[in-house]
């Protein structure tokens, strides 16, 4: 059964384009142009996956995730944006999106990403992988005692997987190169996503702020 998808973007042309590209690959059950309309539509349709624009008037994708606050259960978000700004992307991921792809992605790749998010995996574009590597670069900070230090750094294997994603490899190719199964690659990526969302690594916010100044 193909996943039921809701498309949220304030550009009508873009929505039409994505609908056309996804036609037959996934089941697009509706689209919305504003934060309020999106929240209403998602509550009503309870789709499997929401393709969410990061930049919209009145708060953007972040606000949609916040307002829904986990209801209805089982809805997964995939951020879709032209923005390269690290702080926007990281903010949406930390709010709960299962991944981030840029709008230049091809229709087939996007459908693939939707299916993967539907299956509970994380979707990292090369750029997001780069952001995460950048954010987790260097030694872990002297963490506060109540913080799980595991969350504050990547394992060498996770780092390796992320580097391959950033280098433009597909999951299958990564599995082949590293001599592990595709499932293991997905597990690593999901673990990184969890760290990204749960890490209290204070560098993460400071890093995003710095990034804003440097970019």
């Amino acid at each position, binding site marked *: 059964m193909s996943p039921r998808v809701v498309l949220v973007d304030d550009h009508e042309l873009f929505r039409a384009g994505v609908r056309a590209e996804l036609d037959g690959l996934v089941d697009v059950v509706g689209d919305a142009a504003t934060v309020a309309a999106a929240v209403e539509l998602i509550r009503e349709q309870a789709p499997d996956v929401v393709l969410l624009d990061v930049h919209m008037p009145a708060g953007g994708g972040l606000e949609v995730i916040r307002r829904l606050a986990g209801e209805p259960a089982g809805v997964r978000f995939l951020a879709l944006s032209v923005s*390269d700004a690290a702080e926007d992307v990281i903010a949406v991921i930390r709010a709960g999106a299962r991944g981030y792809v840029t709008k*230049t992605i*091809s229709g087939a790749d996007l459908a693939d990403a939707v299916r993967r998010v539907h299956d509970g995996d994380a979707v990292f574009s*090369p*750029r997001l*992988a*780069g952001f995460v*590597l*950048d954010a987790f*670069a260097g030694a872990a900070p002297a963490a506060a005692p109540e913080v799980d230090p595991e969350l504050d750094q990547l394992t060498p294997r996770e780092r390796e997987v992320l*580097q391959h994603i*950033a*280098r*433009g*490899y597909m999951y299958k*190719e990564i599995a082949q190169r590293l001599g592990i199964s595709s499932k293991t690659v997905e597990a690593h990526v999901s673990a990184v996503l969890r760290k990204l969302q749960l890490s209290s690594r204070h560098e993460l916010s400071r890093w995003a702020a710095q990034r*804003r*100044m*440097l*970019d």
Partner: protein
Amino acid sequence: MMQDMAATSRRRAGAPLRELRRDPEHGMVAGVCAGLGRDLDVDPLLLRIAFGATSLASGVGIVAYVLAWLLMPAAESSGETRTGALADAAGRTGRAAIEVAFGVGFLLLAILLTFRAVGLPFSDVLTWPLVLVAAGGALIWRQSVGGPPTADAAPAPPAAIAPAAAGAPQSRPAVTSRIGVGVTLVVAAAILFLQFTGALAAATDVALAALVVAIALGVIFAPWFVRLLSSLSFERAERIRSQERAEVAAHLHDSVLQTLALVQKRAGDPREVAALARRQERELRAWLSGARQRPGDEQRFVAALQAAAEEIEEAHGVAVDVVAVGDAPLDRDGQALVAAAREAMLNAAKFAGADSAPVAVYAEAADDRLQVFVRDRGPGFDPASVPADRRGVRESIVGRMERHGGEATIRSSPGGGTEVELVIERSTP
């Protein structure tokens, strides 16, 4: 009301009818003699002597001068553009106002002295206060009537507002201070008069009365004043907004609209259209983040790599996506690495073709080493089968890296794309 008067006088000044005009620009006091001289074609100096002589004789000259001043409108300076005249008028009224105030004061003093000389019964109590009042009053009137009324000018398109208003902000504080001087003079005159007449003894009464009057005036003029202030700040905000809008519009016109026009023309050539869109996207992104760009960025490793990628992208119409982690200053090793990476991107763009997925470039700058991966999804090849005379790979990539103590590894398989890995260990972190 004052603004109405100013508008009327300007309208009159613009009328085609030929009439006598003062020429404040060339005048000594108010430009009466200069204006008369110009219109009658007589040297103003002669007229000034005549006025002076008659003034000394009986005071008739002074009366005539003041009458002429009141009756003759000021001429607009000729041979200047309208905006120039406006801006100039602001400065001129400022300079002239002080002189006019002195002039009026002295003239009145002269008149009063003349009256006394003629023998009219006249008290000294009045003389100085009257002179001060005249000078202060002249200053205030001169400012309020002569100042360029910019705020209430006929609604003009944004472009026209800017030059007209340009002269106003710098003269506004000066105008205020001159009005302040005028007011001070008048108040001083009032106090002086009270002092002479002995009324100042009842200082408390006067202070109370003055306070009451001040409060009354404040209540009367407060709304007008507040409205004036808010209209000024609104006007300024509006001006800044319209300037910003004009700047953004100019940029969009030069870049995005041009590209869109080109895209429409070349609609039949998807490769060209994609290249145009890509170039425009990059340019627009650079512009949007332009405020965040720091000087010296071109001396950084990542920036140099991105510049190389853009160059390849533009020349070959293949998208090159750069993902970078960390950054480093661009030293000799970094330069060699960027040059080798550029060669690798060039190969990728050439052999991968325009229709394939973008070339992925991943760069990692750590303290101890620089690393670049260039990956394409082209047909790929068997590295062992590359002939030894292929300079591109051998010399520009492998050779260059080795000369700088680095290493180049090429992984490729037919059908699986190609990846070039470049590493340089950094001697000095």
